[in-house]
């Protein structure tokens, strides 16, 4: 059992004991008139009917007071319990998230190191000749590229969360930018098979930073390809929405699958358990998208597209357009 979960159970046990004691006290307080009358009777003191009435009245009055105070205390206690349990549950979620992140990073960093190393060792030991040798060299290089991307992403997101992005604002036509990025994707052998359609009927100018916009689009596309089912199909669109430009990337995969549409923009959040990994990555892509969109004065949101998931980035239009 994990440490926060154990604390939570211990806390429930303490609260249970507290409620039990409170109930026991309440019982005695509310019955005190009756107990007192019994003791007086046992001591052999005879009370007149008026005195007995006065005693009962006084007991009833204090009973009402104790009931009111007891209920008030009980409600306060429950409110406190609610707050503590909620915070502990959050802690458990963070703990699980961190564990998942660690497992994902371990896998994402060690797998390409392991294969690149084996390819090179095989070459060194003369176990690959001719075409196989070329293939091994190419694959080792791909492993190192994957490792570099992963390290870049880790460093970039660490920088984003500590210092924020360094931006160089310039006027960018989002429609042309998206078209150029998709051409690049079509040339990449790992994503060549993905069916991507772009809907950008007119130029839409925003004030952005080319490098930040590139990261946003790359991360959205890579996310859509990863989660978009097989064979992956992705729809990209650039449009105007009031004073904003809207960049939308939609896949045709399983959608949010119970994940919160806001939480998926938090760092290290990924669907499912990392022991049963279904997709590469560590859960930083959408976090970077949201951080960069915010830095550019916009926002990011996700919605179920039935089927699939659509992630929309809204950016302020350039003053020339607005």
């Amino acid at each position, binding site marked *: 059992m994990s440490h926060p979960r154990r604390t939570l159970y211990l806390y429930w046990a303490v609260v249970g004991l507290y409620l039990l004691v409170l109930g026991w006290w309440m019982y005695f307080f509310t019955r005190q008139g009756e107990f007192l009358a019994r003791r007086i009777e046992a001591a052999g003191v005879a009370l007149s009917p008026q005195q007995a009435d006065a005693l009962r009245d006084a007991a009833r009055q204090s009973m009402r007071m104790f009931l009111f105070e007891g209920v008030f205390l009980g409600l306060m206690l429950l409110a406190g319990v609610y707050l503590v349990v909620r915070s502990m549950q959050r802690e458990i979620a963070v703990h699980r998230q961190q564990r998942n992140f660690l*497992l994902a990073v*371990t*896998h994402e*960093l*060690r*797998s*390409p*190191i*392991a*294969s690149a*190393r*084996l*390819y090179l*060792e*095989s070459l060194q*030991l003369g*176990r*690959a000749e001719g075409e*196989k040798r070329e293939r*091994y060299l190419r*694959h080792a290089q*791909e*492993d190192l590229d994957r490792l570099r991307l992963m390290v870049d992403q880790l460093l970039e997101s660490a920088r984003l969360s500590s210092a924020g992005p360094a931006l160089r604002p310039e006027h960018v036509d989002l429609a042309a930018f998206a078209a150029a990025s998709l051409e690049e994707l079509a040339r990449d052998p790992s994503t060549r098979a993905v069916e991507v359609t772009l809907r950008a009927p007119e130029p839409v100018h925003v004030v952005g930073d080319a490098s930040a916009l590139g990261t946003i689009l790359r991360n959205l596309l890579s996310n859509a390809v990863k989660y978009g089912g097989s064979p992956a199909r992705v729809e990209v669109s650039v449009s105007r929405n009031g004073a904003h430009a809207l960049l939308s990337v939609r896949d045709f995969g399983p959608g949010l699958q119970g994940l919160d549409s806001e939480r998926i923009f938090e760092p290290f959040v990924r669907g499912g358990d*990392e*022991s*049963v*990994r*279904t997709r590469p990555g560590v859960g930083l892509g959408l976090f970077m998208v949201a951080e960069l969109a915010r830095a550019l004065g916009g926002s990011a949101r996700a919605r179920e597209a039935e089927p699939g998931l659509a992630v929309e980035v809204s950016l302020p239009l350039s003053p020339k357009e607005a």
Partner: protein
Amino acid sequence: MSGERLLVVEDEEHLAEVIADNLELEGWRVEVAGDGVQALERIRSDPPALVLLDVMLPGMDGFAVCEALRAEKRDVPILFLTARSSSDDRVRGLELGGDDYLGKPFELRELILRVRAILRRRQWIRSPSPAGERLALGSATVDFKACSADVGRRKIALSPKETLILRCLAERPGEVVTRAEILDRVWGYDAFPTTRTIDNFIVRLRRALEPDPQSPRYIHTVRGTGYRLTP
């Protein structure tokens, strides 16, 4: 040993490719499965000589695959190959019935040596024992094949590891067999962190087979070295 069929369960295409190629160069026939569920089905329908099993897999993780196989009493040897190489993960993998554990990244030569060691051990386990199929210890008779012992009128089930330790000792009666030798033959050279593990097995064997486990007549401890069997 060459020509035996091995199953590599790995979802990373590059790793699966380079491992499979190199094992084939050593003369083994290699198949690859990309996820846990597929691996389990293949092992059930046609068990290979050895499974090289990744832990973080799509569908069903490697630990669960191993657990399911052992629960079904399938003793196909398993070598875990995984990025999760903390000592907790290692111990868990071995406790679940894995034969050995190799953390990524690893050296090619080490991988091949470990595969050979597991297959050699398995071959020893399957080959008929030079000591015969049965071993008589006073009123107790051990059946190596059935992993059981008749003690008087009682029939006692022995675990595969207990049977192998006994067989290891019975193949050299009257001689001292060191703890390291027993570890090497029964577990593999560094599968378990301590040789004390064997001592616990010996205690259990004495309780099952010795008339008086406190002063053993058949399974003797040789202080600081190992054990000796005198049938």
